[in-house]
């Protein structure tokens, strides 16, 4: 197997998206080889969320293509992209509040596995789904809270479940929308450990405000500004860039 011959796990090519007169995304291209940890940073209003939604399928681009592996998914909605191995987390927790942690994780795996059409077996007695849920719960640090109703989880635990639901689909590509948003420093460190421990079989793209998290996790960083790529490079290159320092990092690294 020659690594260079493998198609990127996720690629965007010349993505454009306008909302009325506002050009939120102006020709953004990205390419993530399998296993890559890639971060997108940029000031508020730089178009990070729009780009994220274009990649996840929640928005359709005005121009440009999105590829997952060798498949062009530009025309696919979020569910079709998910069936091709793309999983996403949400910036604001988007869970199943009426289920237990176990049921929520089992549900995510059942939907992703195409079991939703099965109507003659008991869902709650599916050993395979339950074992999978226990495994994912252990990975995201919720092993002792399987029986807890999702609505009763503390905020930090809900953030962990947010990642868990995405992982339960066994994704090839994971899009994370500010995974540490609203977390305490302690919870943030736990989330960093969680993300660092994810297997290399998963390609990860993360939008994040916390620079410690970005520089800790990412191998490549794309800096967005006014809907365009200001710079793409290694964390060290981004940190060293005068341009980025002026535009975004400001006195944080100054």
């Amino acid at each position, binding site marked *: 197997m020659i690594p260079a011959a493998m198609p990127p796990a996720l690629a965007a090519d010349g993505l454009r998206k306008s909302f009325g007169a506002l050009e939120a995304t102006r020709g953004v291209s990205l390419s993530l080889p399998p296993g890559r940890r890639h971060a997108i940073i940029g000031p508020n209003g730089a178009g990070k969320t729009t780009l994220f939604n274009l990649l996840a399928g929640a928005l359709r681009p005005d121009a440009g293509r999105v590829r997952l592996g060798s498949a062009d998914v530009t025309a696919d909605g979020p569910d079709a992209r998910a*069936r091709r191995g793309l999983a996403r987390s*949400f910036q604001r927790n988007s869970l199943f*509040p009426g*289920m237990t942690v176990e049921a929520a994780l089992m549900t995510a795996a059942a939907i992703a596995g195409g079991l*939703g059409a*099965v109507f003659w077996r008991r869902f709650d007695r599916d050993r395979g789904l339950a074992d999978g849920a226990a495994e994912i719960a252990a990975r995201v640090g919720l092993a002792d809270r399987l029986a807890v109703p999702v609505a009763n989880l503390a905020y930090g635990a809900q953030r962990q479940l947010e990642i868990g639901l995405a992982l339960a689909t066994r994704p090839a590509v994971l899009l994370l929308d500010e995974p540490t948003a609203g977390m305490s420093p302690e919870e943030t460190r736990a989330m960093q450990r969680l993300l660092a421990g994810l297997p290399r079989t998963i390609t990860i793209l993360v939008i994040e405000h916390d620079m410690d998290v970005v520089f800790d996790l990412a191998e490549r960083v794309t800096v967005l500004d006014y809907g365009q790529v200001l710079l793409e490079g290694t964390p060290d290159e981004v940190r060293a860039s005068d341009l980025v320092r002026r535009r975004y990092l400001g006195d944080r690294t100054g």
Partner: protein
Amino acid sequence: MTPPASGTRHVVAVLLAAAAGGYWLASGYYGKELLAETAITAILAMSLSLLVGQAGLVSLGHAAFFGIGAYALAGFGARLGWPPALAMAAAVATGAVAALLVGLVAVRLAGVFFIMITLAAGEMAHAWFLKDRLFGGVGGMAGVPRLDLSAIGIDTGDPASFALLALGVAILVYLLLDRLVLSPFGQTLRAIHQNEERARALGCPVGRYKLAAFVVAGAVAALAGTLAAQRSAFVSPELLTWTLSGEVLIVVIVGGGASLLGVSAAAALWIGLRHQLSTLTDHWMLAMGAIFVVLVLVAGDGIDGAVRGLWRRLAQRRGP
């Protein structure tokens, strides 16, 4: 909203069936009619429970599929002279097809727009049968045949036997829908209800699942309609009125939405109260409205929630 997978539901199911059986033994001619009507209403309510309680799709046009099932039986069984069993199967299929056509449009809409489109579709079906000449228009049509079970020694023309038949079909529908509700399919419907955006992000083709639920609910409602047409041997546009859709929706809400047994119990309460109150006062609709308002205020989760709460309290008292 919680999956109704508790083992106690079997106990409750047997108790409800036993109550129906006891009533069947004790009641006279009119009681048998009430029992059949209760069973039919319970089937209709259980079919709507799949939409409202599981998928979170509030339909105000569910009587349309009930009526279409009834009219289809009249068409296939009386007009075309098909054997009643075949006509019944064809009527259920007709209800499924009608639900598919309405659902293709309706499931694209959310919230109040879904309610309005189902209401509109129901009114269109109602208007069609009001004007239609083939089935007697506003006056309706008599002569709908009953299922012929003489081969196994049952005379369905006898009200007592027909009540048992309706009850048997209701139990069968309960067992099938209970299976469906507890399956991965049912769980997916609940996931869509709780968080449609997340279900989609996990890979769920949400529209297709809503459509599947809508078609199953329409087919089961049509099955209830075929029994209603057999019970009175008569079909009329009354079967498709939006007020009937509203009544069934109230029964489902009072029953607890997601609980098949809860909505069945609510159906019995509805039919029983209507019978009792209508013999007492001309203002029975007003009295029923008041009773159901109080019920919803006292037990917000419906009959199902009230029974669960009572069960919990009893268990706590027996415990430590």
